[in-house]
């Protein structure tokens, strides 16, 4: 039973999901602080019309062509979300929901037309819904490239990203190219999403972008540590989820990775060092005790609220 772990397919999937987990965990931390956790979900759906249009234009089901179509479509979606948010009073979550559903509906319209007019295209919508278990050697390389790209961009400009995320006004005062950083961030996010959805599917890529970043927050207050922990959680979810699904018979790989990531989240939520439930409960109790023991504090406490 354990011998399955020695098989090359298992190793490919293991490596790919681990590396994808690291990349997604890293960019996910950025998305979290931009309060764009659900962007992955929205853009993944917004990629559909691009796939179909690319197919209708070039009449081939070539991976690269379709991925490019998906990416262009997702970038346009991201651009629209940004545009709606900044030029109207509509809030970002509403803008995301709109783009998600309108683009997807448009994609379905086109898909139905494609189904009617040209042969051999069914499964086009499945084309962007990858299966984690079917990743191979080339996916390992793709994911590695993705991870190198994401991690290096984040690491190289680390302190710039930090300012960019936490204090835009200050950043612009420093003369940081905010527009340029927006573009870089969006490209990184879209690349991760598009590469992710064709390899592992919408749900898993959304989960890997969202859950590790939130989990990491329970362990640290430092942004740097958060990015690292988030990447570790992402990688660990990929690895352990894959291992568990490999041991069981017919256990789907992607969903197990999601469940693993969720387990890490629950563990963090309960035991997390910074805001975990247990820690908070224990601190509350200690507070109460202290209040009883100490009567009136004489010195002014120095700690700031929150």
């Amino acid at each position, binding site marked *: 039973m354990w011998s399955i772990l020695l098989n*090359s*397919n298992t190793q490919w999937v293991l490596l790919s999901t681990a590396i994808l987990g690291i990349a997604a965990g890293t960019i996910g931390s950025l998305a979290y602080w931009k309060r764009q956790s659900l962007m992955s979900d929205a853009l993944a759906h917004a990629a559909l019309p691009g796939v179909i249009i690319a197919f209708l234009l070039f009449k081939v089901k070539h991976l690269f062509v379709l991925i490019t179509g998906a990416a262009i479509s997702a970038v346009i979606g991201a651009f629209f979300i940004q545009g709606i948010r900044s030029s109207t009073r509509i809030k970002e979550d509403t803008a995301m929901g709109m783009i998600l559903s309108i683009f997807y509906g448009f994609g379905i319209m086109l898909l139905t037309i494609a189904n009617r007019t040209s042969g051999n295209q069914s499964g086009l919508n*499945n084309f962007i819904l990858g299966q984690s278990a*079917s990743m191979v050697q080339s996916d390992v390389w793709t994911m590695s490239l993705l991870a190198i790209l994401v991690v290096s961009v984040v690491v190289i400009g680390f302190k710039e990203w930090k300012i960019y995320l936490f204090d835009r006004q200050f950043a612009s005062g420093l003369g940081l190219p905010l527009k340029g950083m927006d573009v870089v961030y969006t490209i990184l996010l879209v690349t991760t999403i598009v590469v992710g959805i064709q390899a592992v599917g919408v749900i898993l890529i959304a989960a890997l972008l969202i859950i590790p970043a939130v989990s990491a927050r329970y362990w640290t207050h430092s942004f740097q540590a958060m990015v690292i922990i988030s990447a570790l959680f992402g990688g660990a979810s990929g690895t352990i989820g894959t291992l568990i699904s490999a*041991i069981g018979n017919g256990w789907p790989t992607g969903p197990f990775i999601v469940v693993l990531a969720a387990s890490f989240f629950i563990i963090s939520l309960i035991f997390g060092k910074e805001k975990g439930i247990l820690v908070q409960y224990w601190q509350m109790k200690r507070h109460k005790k202290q209040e009883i023991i100490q009567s009136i504090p004489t010195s002014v406490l120095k700690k700031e609220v929150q």
Partner: protein
Amino acid sequence: MITFSKKFWGIILLCCTFLLAACNDKSATNNEQKNAGKDNNKKITVVTTIAQIGEPLSVIGGDRVEVKSLMGPSVDPHLYQATHGDIQTLENADVVFYNGLHLEANMVDIFEEIEKSKSVLAIGETIDKSKLLHDENNAVDPHIWFDIDLWQQALDAAVDQLKEYSPENASYFEENKVKYFEKLQQLKEDTKKLTEIPEEQRILVTAHDAFGYFGRMHHMKVVGLQGLSTDGEIGISDIQNTIDTIVKYKVPAVFVESSINESSIKAVIEGAKKQGVPIQLGGELFSDAMGKAGTEEGTYLGMYRHNIDTIYTALKGGSNTNE
């Protein structure tokens, strides 16, 4: 606030009247439409869900019928999206045939309703239940068109229905049916060449479980990566088990299906290669969808023959190189 509630209630009232009016209006005209259905002088309009039913019937019906398939020849019924035109198609139908056995899961209620006003038949459900295949959870495998005998029975039932609908054309249909069934028998003869493949290598590895009946008919072991439906998610063990089978029996080739994402079967090929089994992609098989209309593969016979030839070439040829 006062003006507000007045306006609000006014608008609501308006909406209600609109709704009620719409309801009455439509149900009235609706009945007229239903009664105006049957007209014996022109071609009989036959509507089928999948082209596997439609195409043979268009041959058998000849110029007396007009056959339309809701799911075009190359559409996977699992992923079928209805279009606006399908409404017209169904509305104008005289006779409707569908596969049944849960293949068109979300349309069953509809056919039950249409049955009240039109002649409808689930041809897959006319087949003796004992001959159907079930999976371990007792779900029926609906891909019966891969068993030529069963499909002949099913088509026979469809033709009977047609005859009943249009008795004056019965003999014409019968004549064409006999001719078509001869071709089916010829096809069945042609499939015998599959037996030339060494028995232990008669293993059909495909992306999803559509070939159960095919395997039973041609004495092939069938290994499908995905379940009966194409929507599921697979695990590593599914891939690994498939590779193990390939390694164990030295299967020379695996196949992709026209309507399914190829990535999982490609993962199997790579995995097997890594384990020292030089396996090749045997080619594309038609499973749920058929080829493009107007081509040879767009017909039931052509589609079947294509599958047989592809399998034969890949497995037979492969076995030669292995020996």
